[in-house]
């Protein structure tokens, strides 16, 4: 059984945040006396990740996902716990460790602004010490996969946001890292570009067996790439397991879409009507009733088309939080 590539036990990250009120008097007072709050950005999280896994970290803003990622890449020292990545302690930042990882932060570029991406790639090569033949092979392979042959010659500032992201990704993977830390990589991109980037990451994972940790707001990212998800909320780990298990366990509902041949009926008798327009109704019904309700609709209505779907993941996540919050340890 292969060694886990990432092993994390009870890591925490606490911050002291100064507290300041509004107004002249409070500002003057703060000259002499400072008060602090302790914020638990990450609170005793544990998990292990096997080589080659693609894991999605889900959670609302400020949940602690990025903080966790930064602790694993060596950017932050945990307040408690000692993560193990590739057999190294990340915060020691040993060159051998750093050569095997990569960090991509959506919205934060590391490409030189005024230069063509090709120049930035050269710099990456020099920094990571990639032998030239390997470098050129990898670079050309990625350029072809992402279809940016002409774009790599243009100054980065002249590229669109999506094109720039492609350059970022290529640049980040030129040294064929074994572990990828991707923090909101598709943020701000249009749907086509998001899909393209996801595809590329999936291919990289397939071909090189790299381990990918991804944080994202976009459920589509997670659904497309990750078999396993870790849900973090208020610094605590709420769920760690297969995405489908999470969907199964926490989605108590199904969504039924009915396209009518003619006529308009009262659909509220079947379930909760989410949306009703000319010729099309969307219903939400409890899961266990799906066979019964669909049978009834098909029998009693003039149906052209009927679909049964899982509710959107955002709803499922809400369910996870609400359920876990009810279990009582979240403020």
């Amino acid at each position, binding site marked *: 059984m292969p060694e886990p590539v990432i092993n994390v036990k009870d890591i925490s990250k606490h911050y002291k945040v100064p507290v300041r009120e509004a107004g002249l008097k409070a500002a003057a007072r703060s000259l002499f006396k400072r008060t602090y709050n302790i914020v638990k950005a990450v609170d005793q999280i544990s998990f292990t990740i096997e080589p080659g896994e693609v894991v999605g970290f889900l959670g609302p803003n400020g949940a602690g996902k990025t903080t966790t990622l930064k602790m694993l890449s060596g950017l932050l020292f945990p307040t408690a716990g000692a993560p193990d990545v590739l057999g190294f302690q990340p915060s020691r930042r040993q060159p051998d460790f750093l050569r095997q990882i990569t960090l991509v932060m959506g919205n934060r570029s590391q490409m030189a602004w005024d230069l063509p991406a090709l120049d930035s790639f050269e710099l990456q090569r020099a920094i*990571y010490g990639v032998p030239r033949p390997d470098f050129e092979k990898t670079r050309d392979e990625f350029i072809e996969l992402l279809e940016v042959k002409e774009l790599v010659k243009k100054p980065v500032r002249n590229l669109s946001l999506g094109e720039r992201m492609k350059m970022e990704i290529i640049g980040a993977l030129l040294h064929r890292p074994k572990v990828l830390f991707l923090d909101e990589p598709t943020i701000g991109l249009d749907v086509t570009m998001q899909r393209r980037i996801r595809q590329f990451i999936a291919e990289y994972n397939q071909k090189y067996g790299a381990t990918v940790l991804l944080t994202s707001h976009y459920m589509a990212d997670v659904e497309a790439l990750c078999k396993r998800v870790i849900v973090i909320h208020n610094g605590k780990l709420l769920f760690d397991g297969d995405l489908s298990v999470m969907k199964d366990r926490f989605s108590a509902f199904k969504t039924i879409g009915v396209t009518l041949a003619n006529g308009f009926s009262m659909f509220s008798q079947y379930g909760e009507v989410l949306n009703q327009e000319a010729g099309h109704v969307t219903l939400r019904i409890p899961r266990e009733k799906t066979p019964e309700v669909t049978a009834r609709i098909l029998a009693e209505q003039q149906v052209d088309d009927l679909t049964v779907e899982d509710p959107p993941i955002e709803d499922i996540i809400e369910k996870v939080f609400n359920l876990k919050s009810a279990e009582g340890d979240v403020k």
Partner: protein
Amino acid sequence: MRTIKLAWNYLRIGIANELQYRVNFFIQLLQSFIALATGLISLWLVFSHTTQLGGWNQPELLAVMGVFIMMGGVIQSAIQPNMQRLMDEIQDGTLDYALTKPVDGQVLISIREFRFWQTTDIVVGMVVLVVAVLQMQMSIGIWQALAFAVALLLGGVMIYAFWLMLTTTAFWLIRIWELVNLFQGLYAAGRWPVTIYPAWLRLGLTFLVPVAFAVTVPAQALTNRLTPVTLVEAFGLAVLLLALSRFIWRLGVHGYSGASA
């Protein structure tokens, strides 16, 4: 060493980038001349009221100005751009990229940027220096020239170390534009030989901010004022400042990793 190759890469790319913007060269030249004119006017004004300042006569002060401009060119082309970028990156969180690279962080952030057109000041400074030496009508021996070069190098190292320490405080103080202003003010004091300043200021300009060693000492080498003791002191201080800046850098990165989100 790989670091040297890396530095060469950055240099090459920096120059190639700047060469694209030839207009910047003329603008830079214009600015250098404006600064030179201002300096010369200052000097001329002083000498319209006196014949010597603190024991330095006119060509000697011109020499000081030449070194001042040259060193300024070195700072503007190689030191300041890197420190500015470090400051910016600390503020927008892109420093994370530099810290996850398998290259020593301090080395990386010190060699990334090079403003080629700012080297006009180095040339202007050298021209002024040559004019000053000619006006002084003395011959410069090989030892003097060597001492000058060594003093210049040590001065540059000290300025780098000092600037790095200053910029590293951005880890704690967030907005440090004003610190930059402070440095520029202190550096401007180096336009005159520090021997004219009152003792407390001279001390500050020597040990707190090594302007004295960056400008006055090389000028002293050229004008026969330099003692071997001073050169040894320069070496010692350079080593000390380099070690101190390394220590403070590591402190800064440690704090950054411990206290940011």
